[in-house]
């Protein structure tokens, strides 16, 4: 008996109330009549019957409710469209930002057991570099001593000009240690990956693995590609494999992977030669902490063995995904927070919309209740309404999110080995489904419960009187306050970030970016191995370019500022130390002095409009036959030659003693936001000798012109082609583009946040308007009586606006507190802007008040226009 009673609970309450008693009686009768043996069978039958039919009855009711919901929503198209749009905005914004955040921050990287893959750096925290690229001797020592890794392997990025099988093209790729592919555990799509034995292949037979893109564009996706030869920077490689299209390593847009052989050059034995990237796979059962502990011990041993080079230096080890720096993370989390705000506002708005709709339908519900509909059926019906709206909003939201995704891809850091656009997959759809159901519940349940609690007949009377209960009022008011809070938070956030962006843009990079065209040409290493060959090339190109109409000046440099931040060398004393790889004694072993190294041709500073403060620029007379000279930045003088006339001072740098002949203004080499740019040392390209590292051979051309620089591009291309037709030209862009790239992700984030804030603002205004309009129409009799009793328009307007002012004040106070907290959590992004910036808060508060006023105007006008006779006659 008890069992059957329990089983009956599976039916919907309304069904149970209607037929439960009858079913119970039937069961009792059958139970009495059944023999002992038949009783067991009866129980089994009745259980199966209940399970099957309970599901069907639920289905019947849902189908009925759906039909009813769609019919009634169709009758109010304005309401329905507004509600769907609001839901779509909330769900779409959240889906888009969550899918990007999931893609960048949460989802495992696209490699098997990627959570066991780690990146390693040397820890030079004392010099301000917790993540310094390891040097080859240190890596070799790590490999020998470490026991926690399956493998520990080096790689370096790089680019090369690809010649043959089509137009010459500059492609990016990587040189990888023999075991890198074993760490990544991704097989080739065609052929094989690189292995340990490939590292020592003979010249001319060196193996290479190419990307899917190269395979398709250059070889027409032919399976015969294996065994063919391609030429990178005039060096031949044999293709042994093609990687699948979704293979990204070490980051996006890599087209080749060749082997990296350490120890082939003298500089590979220099512990100060930091240029490797290191990746490792932890053995099973080894935790990150275990690995860190072991690497700390190894670092200590190295410091003991090589005190001069390794004193005070450790090892930084982090999961692969965490190689992205703090800023993109905060940028994304900020957006996720903002999208949650939008969703919250959308939900409260919908709750409010549904609440007023439900209140308007109270009489209808009361009638349904009177003819026997139970409260739970009515709640169910209202929930069905909100789910229908949420589902439509969800579908539209997904479309919005998919359309918006490409706008957000700037927020995906290029340094991660993942696709640019997050995939639209089941995971995203499941997330949206969850969001939709959650939103439907959130904005449907409150109004449903609120209205139906009263559906005992008193609603009928309530409906006749047309007033609203105090509780409902309070609920609606708190929803509106929540909307104001969320929009204040968003507006303040946008304001703070706009301030920060302006501050970043106001930073003086140390040069004038306007009217400068930049072109990068990578000089193939073999063809241009000799300084004389390069010098000839520079002269030819520069002469031709300078002769172009409108060109004021042009010069070559190793790397333009911001394009490359590294290339940092120790600044040494002039005392020789033949035993050390750097050949000279550091002036102060405790405090390493460092500066970035660039080779420039004459005229670089005038092209960049970087002021020459003292002495002179490099010039054509600085050759390998004359004393090595250097032009240094102001900060170098300030730090290393204080209180002295720097001109004529000497220091050792990049293997030679250099004499300072000029001092120029500082340049933000590492970017506008990084205040860690090292002092700069510029050496004349004419003094680049054959022993100097080819990496620094000038390859970036900067051209200042009085005419629009875009018009110069064809002529510049022609000039370079005349000097060497086989040379690919990459990265033709203006210096302004390079500088604006510095703030690109901020601008994108701000744009998205701004859109969110605008939507939030609009929704909140709609919310306030809806609340007050409903309030005024519900109280029209009271207002009519007041007018009849002599209340002035002023008093009526005051009454309506006073109410909204109270809500606005509450929202602003709470919102400001939360906005301050949000600002503090984003401090990393604020670039010195105070999270309590009074101008921003003032503007946000003013906007919120303005929005409240705008939302109240129409209801106030309606209130004044209430006709006292008509309003009281309705009584």
């Amino acid at each position, binding site marked *: 008996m008890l069992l059957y009673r329990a089983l009956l609970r599976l039916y919907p309450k309304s069904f149970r109330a209607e*037929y439960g008693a009858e079913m119970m*009686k*039937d069961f009792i009768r059958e139970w009495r009549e059944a023999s002992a043996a038949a009783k067991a069978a009866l129980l089994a039958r*009745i259980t199966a019957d209940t399970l099957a*039919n309970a599901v069907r009855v639920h289905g*019947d009711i849902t189908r009925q409710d759906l039909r009813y919901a769609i019919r009634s929503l169709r009758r109010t198209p304005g309401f329905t469209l507004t509600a769907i749009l609001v839901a779509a905005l909330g769900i779409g914004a959240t889906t888009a930002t969550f899918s990007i955040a999931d893609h960048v921050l949460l989802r495992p990287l696209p490699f098997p057991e990627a959570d066991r893959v780690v990146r390693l750096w040397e820890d030079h925290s004392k010099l301000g570099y917790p993540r310094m690229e390891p040097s080859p001797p240190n890596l070799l020592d790590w490999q020998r001593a470490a026991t926690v890794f399956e493998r520990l392997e080096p790689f370096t990025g790089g680019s090369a000009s690809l010649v043959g099988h089509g137009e010459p093209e500059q492609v990016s790729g990587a040189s990888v240690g023999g075991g890198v592919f074993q760490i990544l555990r991704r097989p080739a799509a065609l052929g094989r990956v690189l292995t340990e034995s490939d590292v020592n292949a003979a010249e001319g037979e060196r193996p290479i693995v190419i990307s899917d893109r190269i395979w398709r564009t250059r070889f027409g996706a032919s399976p015969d590609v294996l065994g063919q030869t391609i030429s990178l920077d005039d060096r031949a490689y044999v293709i042994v494999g093609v990687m699948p299209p979704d293979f990204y390593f070490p980051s996006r847009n890599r087209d080749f992977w060749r082997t990296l052989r350490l120890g082939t050059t003298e500089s590979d034995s220099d512990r100060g030669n930091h240029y490797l990237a290191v990746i490792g796979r932890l053995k099973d059962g080894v935790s990150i902490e275990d690995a860190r502990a072991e690497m700390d011990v190894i670092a200590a041993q190295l410091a003991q063995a090589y005190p001069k080079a390794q004193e005070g230096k450790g090892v930084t080890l982090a999961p692969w995904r965490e190689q992205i720096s703090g800023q993109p993370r905060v940028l994304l989390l900020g957006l996720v927070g903002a999208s949650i705000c939008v969703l919250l506002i959308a939900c409260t708005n919908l709750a409010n919309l549904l609440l007023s709709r439900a209140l308007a339908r109270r009489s209808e519900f009361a009638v349904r209740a009177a003819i026997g509909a139970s409260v739970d059926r009515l709640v169910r019906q209202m929930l069905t309404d909100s789910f229908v709206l949420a589902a439509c909003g969800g579908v539209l939201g997904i479309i919005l999110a998919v359309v918006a995704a490409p706008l957000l891809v700037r927020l995906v850091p290029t340094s991660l080995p993942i696709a640019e656009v997050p995939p639209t997959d089941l995971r995203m759809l499941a997330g949206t489904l969850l969001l939709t159901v959650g939103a439907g519940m959130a904005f449907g349940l409150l109004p449903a419960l609120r209205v139906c609690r009263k559906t005992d007949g008193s609603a009928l009377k309530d409906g006749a009187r047309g007033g609203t209960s105090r509780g409902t009022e309070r609920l609606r008011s708190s929803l509106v306050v929540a909307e104001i809070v969320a929009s204040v938070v968003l507006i303040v956030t946008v304001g703070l970030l706009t301030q920060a962006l302006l501050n970043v843009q106001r930073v003086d990079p140390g040069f004038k970016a306007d009217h400068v065209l930049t072109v990068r040409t990578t000089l193939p290493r073999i063809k241009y191995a000799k300084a004389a060959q390069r010098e000839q090339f520079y002269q030819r190109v520069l002469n031709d370019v300078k002769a172009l109409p409108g060109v004021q000046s042009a010069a070559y440099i190793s790397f333009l500022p911001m394009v490359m931040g590294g290339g940092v060398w120790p600044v040494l004393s002039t005392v020789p130390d033949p035993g050390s790889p750097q050949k000279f004694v550091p002036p102060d072993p405790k405090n390493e002095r460092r500066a970035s190294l660039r080779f420039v041709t004459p005229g670089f500073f005038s092209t960049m409009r970087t002021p020459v403060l003292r002495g002179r620029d490099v010039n054509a007379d600085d050759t390998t036959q004359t004393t090595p000279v250097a032009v240094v930045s102001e900060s170098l003088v300030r730090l290393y030659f204080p209180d002295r006339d720097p001109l004529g001072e000497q220091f050792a740098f990049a293997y030679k003693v250099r004499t300072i002949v000029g001092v120029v203004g500082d340049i933000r080499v590492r970017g506008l936001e990084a205040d860690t740019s090292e002092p700069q040392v510029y050496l004349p390209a004419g003094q680049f000798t054959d022993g100097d590292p080819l990496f620094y051979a000038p390859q970036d051309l900067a051209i200042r012109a009085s005419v629009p620089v875009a018009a110069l591009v064809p002529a510049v291309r022609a000039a370079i082609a005349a000097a060497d037709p086989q040379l690919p030209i990459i990265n033709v862009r203006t210096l302004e583009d390079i500088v604006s790239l510095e703030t690109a992700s901020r601008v994108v984030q701000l744009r998205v946040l701004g859109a969110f804030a605008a939507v939030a603002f609009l929704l909140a205004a709609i919310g306030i308007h809806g609340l007050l309009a409903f309030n005024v129409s519900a109280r029209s009799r009271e207002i009519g009586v007041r007018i009849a009793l002599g209340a002035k328009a002023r008093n009526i307007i005051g009454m309506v606006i006073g109410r909204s002012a109270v809500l606005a004040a509450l929202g602003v106070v709470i919102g400001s507190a939360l906005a301050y907290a949000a600002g503090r959590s984003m401090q990393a992004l604020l670039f010195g802007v105070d999270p309590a910036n009074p101008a921003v808060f003032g503007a946000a508060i003013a906007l919120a008040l303005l929005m409240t006023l705008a939302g109240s105007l129409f209801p106030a006008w309606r209130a004044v226009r209430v006709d006292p006779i008509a309003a009281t006659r309705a009584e």
Partner: protein
Amino acid sequence: MANPTGPESLLPLPPAVFHILMALADEDRHGYAIIQEVRSRTNGDVRLSPGTLYRSIQRMLEDDVIVEISERPAPELDDERRRYYRITPFGRSVARAEANRLHELVRLARASGFHTKKA
């Protein structure tokens, strides 16, 4: 309150619904009586479970093919206080339409050479 869309809109009837209509054809009955009537009419072949019965009743009430009646049979015949159901005129026309449909189906089956026991 006749269904505006006509009896054909409900066809084909689920077997349980058709059996219930047949059980109510000559007499108002309560739920348990319907189960027993169906069982005896079909010689025990069809045993309606309570879940199927009341779910069908609910839908039939919504479709206006049956109504719940307020007057009860003579108290001495009514062993318990039960809810009784009666077939409506619309319900009769629905049942007739279903019978015609099945008849037509059988005719077609015969014409195709699928002979029933009698033939």
